[in-house]
């Protein structure tokens, strides 16, 4: 793993409001500045700066060879990145939207995830695949898929999902620095979320794989990540009116999965709801609920419940609000956590 020293300093610069998109762009820039083997490639990432402007300015600063507009072919992009990584580069691939990563599925599953294992460690592939993902931005079909279940089920991949501006920077730096391939899911609807953040002295970069408690509470635990974190935090606030003091855990990475943090929280609270935007059936929530139950069975006052997108294809923009798990749906699940049993 390359060092990420530049990012490891103390936060000394003056914090100003920054968006997640800006923090991601800055993470790319800092990675490229520090490590000449980092190359960005994808559709429209160069001259245009990406359709979400995350790569804005990189081609100008580092040249077209470091930030490259590729032909329009996702399997080709990821396949070429595999070859570049085989030669010692550290490619960061942008897939323009979630559903447009599917053409690269074979390269991802059959090569990216398996090359280190196939060569018994001789040829790791330090590739980061950035995927703007999820709904809530009024996108037409194919622009709002939550695809994390596919990647989670594939041994050999790391799956990382930032939910805050800080983490967007830190986790992307850590992902690029990782010698393992990372599918880096960027919640599109948080791209323009803002937080006080100093690009000059970003917070220390933590290794991938640590969940974090975003809000402490004692009644029950909401377990979530990425686009659903703000929903859960809002729900937790609203829940105080009902007398519930909810803990909120942000997973930050689905692989590796931080069993310790999650189990510790649920053992404390005795109740848990997993919240995500992805469809429920076969989605991440099943795995998470099953793990919690295996590890905390005798601490559980109620079954772990799941609040998720419905088991339907992502709806058209005018209907998406009905699909996306919102505060009410989270609170409804909390209410179903068999409180009467408490007595």
């Amino acid at each position: 793993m390359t060092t990420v020293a530049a990012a490891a300093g103390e936060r000394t610069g003056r914090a100003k409001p920054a968006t997640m998109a800006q923090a991601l762009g800055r993470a790319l820039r800092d990675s490229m500045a520090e490590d000449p083997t980092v190359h960005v490639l994808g559709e429209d990432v160069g001259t245009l700066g990406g359709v979400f402007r995350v790569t804005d300015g990189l081609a100008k600063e580092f040249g077209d060879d470091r930030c490259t507009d590729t032909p329009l072919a996702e399997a080709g992009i990821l396949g070429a990145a595999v070859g570049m990584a085989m030669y010692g580069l550290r490619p960061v691939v942008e897939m323009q939207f979630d559903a447009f990563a599917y053409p690269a599925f074979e390269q991802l599953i059959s090569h990216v995830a398996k090359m280190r294992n196939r060569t018994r460690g001789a040829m790791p592939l330090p590739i980061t695949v950035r995927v703007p993902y999820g709904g809530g931005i009024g996108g037409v079909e194919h622009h709002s898929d939550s695809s994390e279940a596919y990647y989670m089920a594939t041994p050999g991949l790391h799956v990382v999902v930032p939910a805050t501006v800080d983490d967007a920077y830190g986790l992307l730096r850590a992902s690029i620095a990782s010698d393992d391939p990372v599918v880096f899911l960027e919640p599109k609807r948080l791209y323009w979320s803002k937080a006080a953040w100093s690009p000059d002295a970003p917070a220390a970069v933590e290794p991938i794989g640590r969940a974090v408690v975003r809000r402490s509470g004692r009644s029950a635990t909401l377990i979530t990540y990425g686009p659903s974190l703000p929903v859960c935090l809002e729900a937790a606030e609203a829940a105080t009116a009902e007398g519930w003091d909810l803990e909120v855990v942000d997973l930050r990475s689905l692989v590796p999965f931080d069993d310790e943090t999650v189990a510790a929280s649920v053992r404390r609270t005795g109740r848990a709801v997993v919240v995500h935007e992805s469809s429920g059936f076969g989605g991440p929530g099943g795995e998470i609920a099953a793990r919690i139950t295996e590890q905390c069975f005798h601490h559980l006052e109620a079954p772990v419940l799941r609040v998720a997108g419905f088991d339907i294809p992502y709806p058209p923009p005018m209907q998406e609000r009905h699909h996306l798990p919102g505060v009410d749906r989270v609170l409804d699940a909390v209410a179903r956590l068999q409180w009467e049993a408490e007595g």
Partner: protein
Amino acid sequence: MTVQELPGAAAYRPTPPPAWKPLTDPAPLLPDPEPYRVLGTEAAAGADPELLLRLYAELVRGRRYNAQATALTKQGRLAVYPSSTGQEACEIAAALVLEERDWLFPSYRDTLAAVARGLDPVEALTLLRGDRHTGYDPREHRIAPLCTPLATQLPHAVGLAHAARLKGDDVVALAMVGDGGTSEGDFHEALNFAAVWRAPVVFLVQNNGFAISVPLAKQTAAPSLAHKAVGYGMPGRLVDGNDAAAVHEVLADAMARARRGEGPTLVEAVTYRMDAHTNADDATRYRVDSEVEAWRAHDPILLLERELTGRGLLDEDGVRTVREAAERMAAGLREQMNADPVLDPMDLFSHVYEEQTGQLREQAARLRVELDAEHDRHDESGAEDVR
């Protein structure tokens, strides 16, 4: 006719190189070195005046449609609109060249082709308004759903054309794709299947110079996109995509060829996207105004108007009539799009499967409860029912 019976295929056995022969003769497959043109050339004399006038009226209408749809995005009436301004000759010719029984496979940019084929503009725009993924019954209109994942509609067109041929139906599929889309693996696989199966399908590539911000030179190093045809053993045709008469003629030839059972054709129409990629795009980031201006002088409406007026087939009155009709269409569209679509959220569960699974029934019931609660809250607060 089975695959084995195809000329060439039946006889095919691997033969050692001393006796090796190409499967097909490459010479007739290669495109002409320059895009084919009709307007302003000698070929124009042979063009059917009625067709030219029809094309003209549709081009003007199409231009107006593009402008109106773009305006609707500004009013929040459309989620997004990828305009085909500048490319109307391709859109219109593609629609007009089809018989009623034929199928159109449009890409996400091709609502105009669908409308020119007769689809109600509101139905055509549903995807982009954001209320439904597809606003029409594809089988009724023989227009496949507007396709967003690039080039993925091409194998569909091949499969459909193949199925029709197997059934003995005289149906040709016309599939549209952009220059960027030609880089996708699905383009390759579709063209190969089409040629091997001799499917009655015509591929129309609108080379408008860009895939969002990426210019053609970063997309391909080929002499032209039409040259890709030879690698599949089908003819490649290069045409001036702003010359509606030329596009119509080349496509009509390809359709006729397909109908005769001679297989697929790849047509590259060289054109230019005058607007930004969509209303959300900022084209100044990747191209210069002078380039846009150069193309303005080669505008498809201009070219046709010049031809028609030069030949006395069109006068100021004629132009006015056509423009007025286009204005009426635009006004109608504006009005229709002013109404909010009536949507039932419970529809989300209606078409996932033929029969709702138990899970979906449960989820639908949960949403029902939420909606009723929302309804009650709105009733109490005197607000409008948003369902």
